[in-house]
């Protein structure tokens, strides 16, 4: 018999083989499970930081449906713009309808370049032109927090757009004309407070998306940063928040800005309504007092905007 010849043993004769098969199967199963496990094991500190950044990034305001009992970040809010109605997608880690399976690289590319993992382009209603300044560390923390959410199966409705925007490829051209990717670079000539405020206002908090007027192509007019937008989302008139004394907030003290961001109360005792009401609840009221102060410091450094051209 040749049964003992090396390489020619029938499996049934080898008492160790079933164990080897079992070990292989187990290893295979672990390989399938482990990526999920490894993801779930994001350090709690990163998850907490990510939660803070998701508030500071205003993600909740658009990515939560505007109805009572809506699941936070599961998408669905309608965003009416002059270019059509967009529906914010689901950010929970559901594999079928959300961000399940996304890597930090996928998230970074989406946030900072406006490109989905499948290579398709986002519309700039998603503020990637502002988010492009977000740091690597912040992208990773945001990813850790989003992965920690309970997956919700919920698909946003299709965007309702005119024919000439229905192809996302249009955005390739739009990006060529209007978009430059790049991380935020602190200005060493300014204070740490100012730089933190600049990062929050220009990038993470994307204040300009509503407060800066847009040109005919929908790109922000950077020469009029935060000078107000007469045709904001939902047809709302968004105010000037530069240091202009009459049209802007040039008469507000630093503390008044800070209190507005925390409580939504204006210096005259009125409370903000309209879309800023949600921004305060979801974003600025959730920030640390230091971050609110940093925002105020940055805003108070802006030149007063001249009145808009008639």
């Amino acid at each position, binding site marked *: 018999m040749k049964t003992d010849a090396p390489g020619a043993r029938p499996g049934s004769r080898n008492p160790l083989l079933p164990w080897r098969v079992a070990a292989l199967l187990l290893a295979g199963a672990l390989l399938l499970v482990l990526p999920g496990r490894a993801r779930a094991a994001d350090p709690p500190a990163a998850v907490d930081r990510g939660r803070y950044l998701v508030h500071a990034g205003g993600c909740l305001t658009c990515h939560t449906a505007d109805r009572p009992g809506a699941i936070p970040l599961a998408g669905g809010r309608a965003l009416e713009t002059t270019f059509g109605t967009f529906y914010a997608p689901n950010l929970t880690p559901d594999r079928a309808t959300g961000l399940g399976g996304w890597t930090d690289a996928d998230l970074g590319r989406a946030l900072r370049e406006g490109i989905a993992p499948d290579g398709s382009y986002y519309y700039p209603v998603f503020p990637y032109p502002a988010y492009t300044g977000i740091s690597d560390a912040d992208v990773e923390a945001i990813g850790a927090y989003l992965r920690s959410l309970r997956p919700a199966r919920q698909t946003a409705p299709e965007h309702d757009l005119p024919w000439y925007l229905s192809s996302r490829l249009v955005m390739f051209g739009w990006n060529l004309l209007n978009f430059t990717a790049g991380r935020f670079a602190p200005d060493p000539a300014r204070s740490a407070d100012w730089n933190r405020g600049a990062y929050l206002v220009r990038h993470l908090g994307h204040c300009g998306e509503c407060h800066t007027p847009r040109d005919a192509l929908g790109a922000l007019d950077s020469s009029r940063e935060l000078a107000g937008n007469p045709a904001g989302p939902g047809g709302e008139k968004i105010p000037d928040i530069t240091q202009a004394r009459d049209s802007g907030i040039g008469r507000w003290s630093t503390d008044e800005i800070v209190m507005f961001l925390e409580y939504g109360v204006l210096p005259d*005792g009125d*409370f903000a309504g309209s879309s800023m009401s949600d921004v305060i609840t979801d974003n600025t009221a959730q920030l640390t007092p230091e971050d609110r102060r940093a925002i105020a410091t940055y805003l108070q450094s802006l030149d007063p905007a001249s009145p808009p051209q008639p």
Partner: protein
Amino acid sequence: MRHRVLPALLACAVLSVPAVAVSATAPADAIKYRKAVMAALSNHVSAFMLVNFGKVEHQGHLKAHANAIADLGTQAKVLFPAGTDAGDTDALPLIWKEPDKFRKLLGDLEASSAKLRDAVAANDKPGTLAAFKAMGEACKGCHDRYRKADD
């Protein structure tokens, strides 16, 4: 004595009946009154903040402002009678289309402003801030949905 007072009281009661039975208030006046009360409310909020956040030193005034905010917060619910949706007002017609939702927010204002008054009376600083924040949520929620945006 008694027979002199009673007829007078009766006369008063009779005279006041029309005012109760049929609201003789012109919608334009109701709107003016609503705006005046809301302005009074916001002025007390503004004054309250200046004292509460230490911008002025009149700590002794804080209770008066908190009491006024609570009182005016209670009045708000009767300031939106039917027929006051048109005219010189920023109040949106949606108020009268979903009265229950609207009343809930006014109820939140009433409850949170009462808490503010009580927290100030008890010199409870964290409670004051929490009540102020809750009141802000009610105010913002209502202004967001039921007040015309600036134009």
